């Protein structure tokens, strides 16, 4: 049953399995064990980024394509929902139309970019997507009549998801059953569903071809696969999932602006999450997103302590300044690319595999 649900791609490492269970349990129980709005927001952000990072991994880790336009699709999803709900009012119809329109736009855009530029070398593709993404970002802030410009859009979501909606008067285990809680669990459900679908995709014959292209494109082509159409499909699929992640973000925040979904900083965060978690393993997306976002929100507090303790030492004080958390994650990123390109998940799987093979007969 579990094997089937995970498409035969089990964690293959006891430690990893435990970590994944802890993350899932932690997310599910957040409203009950960590009170307060901040913890809930962090947990929701982890869910959204699991989808986003996994979709990026589909492209980077499984197909070996570096794209810097991934946040563009994330932003399209978020803006789709935001614009539709601003114009049509807080209805489910609005949500559906926004998501559908965003998906269509992403489909067309990713198809065009893919067909035009996936024939060129990796470098060019990376550069072209970078240029396209930055153009899109300026466009979003320029057409302020539609997108709200730099200020972004605040909007109302369907009543079921608003904090004002209440399932029953009495709180359950000390937690009030309001719309925020409902949307949180809906978010987790959608995340799990999308993740399992992506796991299905990468473990299908189609996914195997993508990996073959990553390993040796020339050979895959010689075997008779149309590599360009496979690479384009991978590009489109990954854009679609990123769009959905963007829609989730907008619904959760009830706000969207260029900085929350389109900025280049998010693109860099994404890269860090994919690489630290482990390229080419979707579980890496879960681990990477969880570690990164927890670090983003709580490492600073830790560093505040450290910088308080070292306030007298000039250089060290600046190095552990709370605002410099990205420095340490950046170093971790460079180390990951060198030392364990398969990231945390790859490392765990490798050591589990070594342990298994070291005991003959086991």
């Amino acid at each position, binding site marked *: 049953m579990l094997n089937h649900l995970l498409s035969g791609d089990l964690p293959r490492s006891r430690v990893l399995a435990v970590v994944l269970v802890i993350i899932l349990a932690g997310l599910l129980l957040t409203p009950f064990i960590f009170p307060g709005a901040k913890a809930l927001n962090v947990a929701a952000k982890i869910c959204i980024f699991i989808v986003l990072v996994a979709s990026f991994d589909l492209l980077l880790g499984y197909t*070996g394509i*570096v794209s810097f336009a991934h946040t563009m699709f994330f932003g399209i999803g978020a803006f789709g929902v935001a614009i539709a709900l601003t114009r049509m009012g807080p209805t489910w119809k609005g949500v559906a139309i926004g998501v559908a329109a965003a998906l269509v736009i992403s489909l067309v855009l990713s198809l065009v970019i893919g067909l035009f530029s996936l024939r060129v*070398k*990796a*470098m*060019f593709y*990376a*550069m*072209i997507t*970078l*240029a*396209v993404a*930055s*153009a899109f970002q*300026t*466009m979003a802030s*320029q057409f302020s009549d539609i997108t709200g410009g730099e200020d972004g859009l605040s909007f109302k979501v369907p009543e079921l998801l608003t904090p004002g909606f209440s399932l029953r008067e009495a709180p359950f285990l000390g937690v009030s059953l309001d719309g925020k809680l409902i949307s949180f669990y809906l978010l987790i459900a959608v995340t799990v569903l999308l993740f399992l679908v992506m796991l299905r995709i990468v473990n299908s014959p189609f996914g195997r071809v993508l990996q073959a292209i990553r390993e040796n494109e020339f050979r895959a082509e010689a075997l008779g696969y149309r590599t360009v159409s496979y690479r384009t499909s991978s590009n489109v699929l990954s854009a679609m999932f990123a769009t959905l992640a963007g829609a989730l973000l907008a619904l959760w925040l009830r706000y969207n602006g260029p900085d929350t979904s389109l900025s*280049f900083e998010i693109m*860099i965060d994404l*890269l*860090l999450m994919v*690489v630290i978690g482990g390229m080419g393993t979707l579980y890496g997306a879960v681990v990477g997103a969880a570690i990164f976002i927890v670090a983003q929100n709580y490492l600073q507090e830790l560093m505040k302590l450290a910088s308080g303790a070292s306030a007298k030492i000039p*250089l060290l004080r*600046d*190095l552990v*300044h709370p*605002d*410099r958390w*990205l*420095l340490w994650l*950046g*170093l971790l*990123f*460079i180390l990951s*690319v*060198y030392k364990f*390109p398969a990231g945390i998940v790859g490392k765990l799987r490798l050591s589990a595999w070594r342990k298994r093979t070291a005991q003959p007969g086991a």
Partner: protein
Amino acid sequence: MNSPATTAIEPLPTVKPDRLPLMLLPVLALVALPLIGSASTWVTLTFAGLAMGMIIFIIASGLTLVFGLMDVLNFGHGVFITLGAFMATSVLGLMTGWTTSTSLLLNLVAVLAAMLVAMSVAGGVGSVFERVIIRPVYGQPLKQILITMGGMIVGEELIKVVWGPEARPLLLPTAFQGSILMGDAAVEKYRLISVVLGLIVFAIMTWVLTHTKVGLLIRAGVHDREMVESLGYRIRRLFIGVFVVGSALAGLGGVMWGLYQQSVTPQLGSQVNVLLFIVIIIGGMGSVTGCFIGAMLVGLLANYTGFLVPKVALFSNILLMVIVLLWRPEGLYPVGKK
């Protein structure tokens, strides 16, 4: 018995020089003239465009050569720009007496000192960057993109550690401020200086590339690395040299860009990155002349459209890239790579 050697040796067939892309610059400038209408505005805008183009060229030339020589695309190139600009704020900050004096000589010395310090620091950091970040991942494009991006993140953060995260002012020395009148047109002095400086760098670079042995080897290496290696030249050493010089030029460009904008932010480098890529794609990856023309086109177009249709100015670079690539898919001067 007549030996064939007595017959006159035919000259080697030469490739006809391709001057078509060169024509783009005057054509663009002439097309813009009637659209803008006023000649004095046109002169001002043209100089602004050329100055911007020169600075971009100085920054991008190293990037394109590094790519041509070793297929290394450094996404962290922007760090050297920021580094150079911040070094200039420090050096000029120490020499405030000299920059605020009205003597042209003292001003000039201060700026030259800032440029020299910025270039040597950027070059030095460049050699470390090459050793630590780039060397371990040769020939692995995917890792290279990721790791140079990582270098960019860490570099930017380290710059924030040293100089702080806020924007710092970088004021022009007194003698460089203001503008001079050319007929009716007011041209800022600093823009003129940038143009002259850019032309000097371009001339020196062209001279080195075409008239020295090192230049010959670099051009040959861009064209066919293995052949140069098999003739016994150490292309690795050449590459390190080009990388260091490229970083130093980026530092110089950073100083000039900072003075142009009159302020420096730690995000300067990553903001310019996109522009640099567009320029070297337009020029043809690995071609210095192409890079020069590409940079001028970008600079001119940005200023013309900024005046005529400001909304389009934001996309003018992308539009330019699309048009150029439709015309010449490998850039203006494709490097005939093996």
